[in-house]
């Protein structure tokens, strides 16, 4: 069943051309990073998960090191973001059983396939067409859990 989106989304994220440019630039940089690091290649990730090449520790470490620094400076010294007026915050989600169960299910899937969401998108940019199987699978999985969690209509706690 499909639903037409409302004609005007109140409170829609985004502020026009500059906002879109920043999102594209950020995504592009992210994608280059996934390609350079090899994380867009399932084989490289599987080498890590099979403990044959621990290089992926430097990918996550390098990335988290940068965000740690930027988040710390922005939340402490900068007020709000220029394009949206949003206050700078850190990424803190509530803890519940889903965090553990979801993490475990994701871990098994990552170990089977060697792909995670961002890396799978970037992998398309390598000309790696078989990765579309993984992207299809991720959409199916995301839909299945959303359908199942919406059944009680007591909408589950939202998460980014």
């Amino acid at each position: 069943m499909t639903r037409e989106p409302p004609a005007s989304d109140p409170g829609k994220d985004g502020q026009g051309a500059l906002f879109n440019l920043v999102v594209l630039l950020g995504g592009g940089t992210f994608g280059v990073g996934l390609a350079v690091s090899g994380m867009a290649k399932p084989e490289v990730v599987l080498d890590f998960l099979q403990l044959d090449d621990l290089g992926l520790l430097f990918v996550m470490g390098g990335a988290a090191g940068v965000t740690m620094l930027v988040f710390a400076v922005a939340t402490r010294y900068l007020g709000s973001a220029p394009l949206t007026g949003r206050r700078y915050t850190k990424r803190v989600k509530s803890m519940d059983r889903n965090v553990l169960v979801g993490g475990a299910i994701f871990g098994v899937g990552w170990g089977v396939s060697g792909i995670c969401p961002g890396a799978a998108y970037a992998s398309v940019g390598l000309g790696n067409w078989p990765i579309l199987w993984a992207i299809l699978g991720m959409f199916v999985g995301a839909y299945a859990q959303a359908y199942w969690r919406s059944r009680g209509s007591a909408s589950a706690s939202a998460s980014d």
Partner: protein
Amino acid sequence: MTTLPLVLTLDQPFPRGVLPYLLGGVLIGLGVSVIYLATGIIAGASTFLETTLSYASGVSRLNQPKYLASRDWRVLFTLGMVGGAAAYTLAFADPWTTQVQPWRLLGGGVLVGVGTRLGKGCTSGHGVCGIGSLSETSIVNVATFMAFAVGTALLVAAVGVTP
């Protein structure tokens, strides 16, 4: 960037060196930071799956106001990732195709789709931004998915599934 099909051994933990890994990681962090500094938005990769499904499905969880509000820019964000990797490939590398079998990609992908959305994030949301926020929730999630992923990958290799 070289990918050497070596016989990898544990006494050599970094057979491909560390520089491409570190450089790639820093670029990933910079990509997130560009968006964050300009907009205040902490962009993870897995939310795109659910927000994009809202274009085609009326399931209530997929049509939360904040999903409808962010779905357009998340499509752009994802296209940016594809474009960045494509630009790098055109400039510095040859097109590349995985040898990992389709059933592993599809089946693993389904579990990744369920697990990242149920667990409130993926390698970028929890692993990069959550760890960068020193969030206990994210640290627990990352420790959990790492442990299960290593265990699963070793098991898959042990029963002889390759590639």
